[in-house]
């Protein structure tokens, strides 16, 4: 029995149970009816989608073989560049920006006739944990629209969780794929730094950013990861996937696999989330895995280290928005300096400005050593702690988020409290490791709980294997299909 939605739809297309045009139409109709409430899409590309669908149908009619992702309706987070299609980063400053080239990942998927339904909502410049920092208003949680979809890739998670896209690509700088996937009861994977090209991904924090899949099953995440993890000469930090395609080892036995539990990850976690993760530990025991416990003492520094480094890099990366070459430009100004300042001051939202200011502060003369340099050194210590941990285990199991999806409006009130929700996700980015969030339960209100499997560098195959085995054993936690059914 295949759990993969992509494989099931592929089979239906090949066996002509439904045409790609019918499938695409179904999704476009579902977007028309559902998106008003979910606010997952900020741009819908129905015309291009139907064109691609038509081309796929012609290929099938001509008896040609089609690829696994060919003709499958999907979405991209709105910070992934799409030539000729508006890419806004959900910021006023890029509201009418139309890229003149494709991101590597979109080039690859487009060449495989992936059907792009549209671009999805996010926190402005991927800065946030609720999607509410979006210039277009936040995306809602498909399980309960009084709650947020999470962030920053909230739109992708809302669309995939609400079944108005089969899968999507998001980006993860401090948890922006895994956290919304956890909130929406689906699967999200942040690959190893360097496994997927960042070419054409609008930069937030370049040493932390990574593109990855958001899907309804572990197998789909593996399929999409295999497709986009090639070597790309346009990103000098990208070496691509190491080793065989991850789909080959997905269903391996995990008897004897060492699952690590670090007690620091389990502290300060809401009770229902902790017991859901503890139940998952029992599932792994029953599958024959060995549970290994240890400490990760430097984990307590991960969050401040993350915010210092991410904001420092953001303050530099966002220096390019000056109104001259692209994007919003202030209308009335005295001189060039005034134009740049007015453009940035009214083009950026509050959270983005706050992070630019913090980043400038920690890099400024007099504070550089105390904050930025110290944070970088501590980053080294955290990396070392994880390296030691992987001498004792194969993968680490942890909660994805200490709680479930917050109510709309809750996240914006207190910046530091909101930052604390990223405590379980940021260490992966700090160390460049791969991490996947998988649904593992529901809270009393019926909102999904997610758990996270963290692997050593370039060991996506191991975390996907462990995640797949868990999903098979505990399949009842898979998100119910909401919206259109296939």
């Amino acid at each position, binding site marked *: 029995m295949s759990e993969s939605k992509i494989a099931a739809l592929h089979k239906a297309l090949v066996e002509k149970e439904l045409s790609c045009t019918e499938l695409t139409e179904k999704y476009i109709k579902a977007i028309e009816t559902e998106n008003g409430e979910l606010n997952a899409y900020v741009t819908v590309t129905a015309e291009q989608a139907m064109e691609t669908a038509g081309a796929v149908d012609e290929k099938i009619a001509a008896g040609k073989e089609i690829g696994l992702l060919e003709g499958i309706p999907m979405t991209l987070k709105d910070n992934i560049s799409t030539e000729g299609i508006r890419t806004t980063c959900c910021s006023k400053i890029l509201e009418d920006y139309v890229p003149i080239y494709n991101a590597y990942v979109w080039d690859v998927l487009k060449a495989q006739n992936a059907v792009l339904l549209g671009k999805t909502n996010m926190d402005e410049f991927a800065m946030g944990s609720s999607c509410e920092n979006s210039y277009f208003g936040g995306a809602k949680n498909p399980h309960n629209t009084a709650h947020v979809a999470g962030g920053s890739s909230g739109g992708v998670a809302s669309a995939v969780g609400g079944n108005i896209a089969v899968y999507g690509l998001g980006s993860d700088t401090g948890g922006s794929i895994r956290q919304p996937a956890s909130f929406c009861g689906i699967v999200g994977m942040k690959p190893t730094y360097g496994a997927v090209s960042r070419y054409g991904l609008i930069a937030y924090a370049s040493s932390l950013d990574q593109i990855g899949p958001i899907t309804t099953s572990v197998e789909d995440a593996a399929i999409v990861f295999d497709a986009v993890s090639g070597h790309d000469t346009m990103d000098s930090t990208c070496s691509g996937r190491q080793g065989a395609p991850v789909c080959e080892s997905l269903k391996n036995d995990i008897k004897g696999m060492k699952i690590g539990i670090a007690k620091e990850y389990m502290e300060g976690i809401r009770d229902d989330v902790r017991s859901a993760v503890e139940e998952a530990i029992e599932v792994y025991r029953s599958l024959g895995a060995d549970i290994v416990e240890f400490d990760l003492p430097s984990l307590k520094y991960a969050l401040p280290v993350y915010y210092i480094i991410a904001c420092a890099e953001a303050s530099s990366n966002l220096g390019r928005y000056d109104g001259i*070459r692209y994007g919003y430009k202030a209308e009335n100004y005295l001189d060039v300096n005034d134009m740049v300042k007015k453009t940035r001051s009214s083009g950026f939202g509050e959270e983005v400005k706050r992070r630019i200011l913090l980043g400038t*502060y920690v890099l400024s003369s007099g504070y550089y050593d105390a904050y930025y340099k110290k944070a970088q050194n501590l980053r080294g210590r955290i990396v070392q702690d994880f390296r030691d941990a992987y001498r004792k285990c194969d993968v680490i199991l942890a909660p994805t988020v200490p709680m479930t999806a917050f109510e709309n409006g809750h996240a914006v009130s207190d910046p530091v409290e909101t930052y604390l929700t990223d405590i379980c996700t940021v260490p992966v980015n700090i160390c460049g490791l791969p991490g996947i969030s998988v649904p593992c339960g529901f809270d009393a209100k019926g909102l999904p709980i997610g758990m996270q499997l963290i692997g050593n560098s370039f060991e996506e195959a191991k975390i996907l294997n462990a995640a797949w085995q868990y999903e098979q054993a505990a399949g009842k936690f898979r998100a119910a299909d909401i919206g259109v059914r296939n």
Partner: protein
Amino acid sequence: MVTKEEIMKIAILSKLYVAEDEIDKLTEDMAEIISFADTINNASDEGMDFDNINGLSNVLRDDVVVPSLPREKILQNAKDSDDGCFMVKNIMK
């Protein structure tokens, strides 16, 4: 403790205007965030000299000439352009 004056200085470096009525709230927020960042003060980083993650090294391509983007395309997102150039007000009088 972060002061209003420091925030004003940082805003100039960041090329951002901070409105009079925003400065108090912003200073308060920044003070809270920076005191949160201060939790690393007591951590020992002795002997640590961080250079990169995962010991990655740059993946360089062969030095061959490849086509670059045409000028018209590059200019198409600019609000003001003329004669193949981006337009800005005089920088020097």
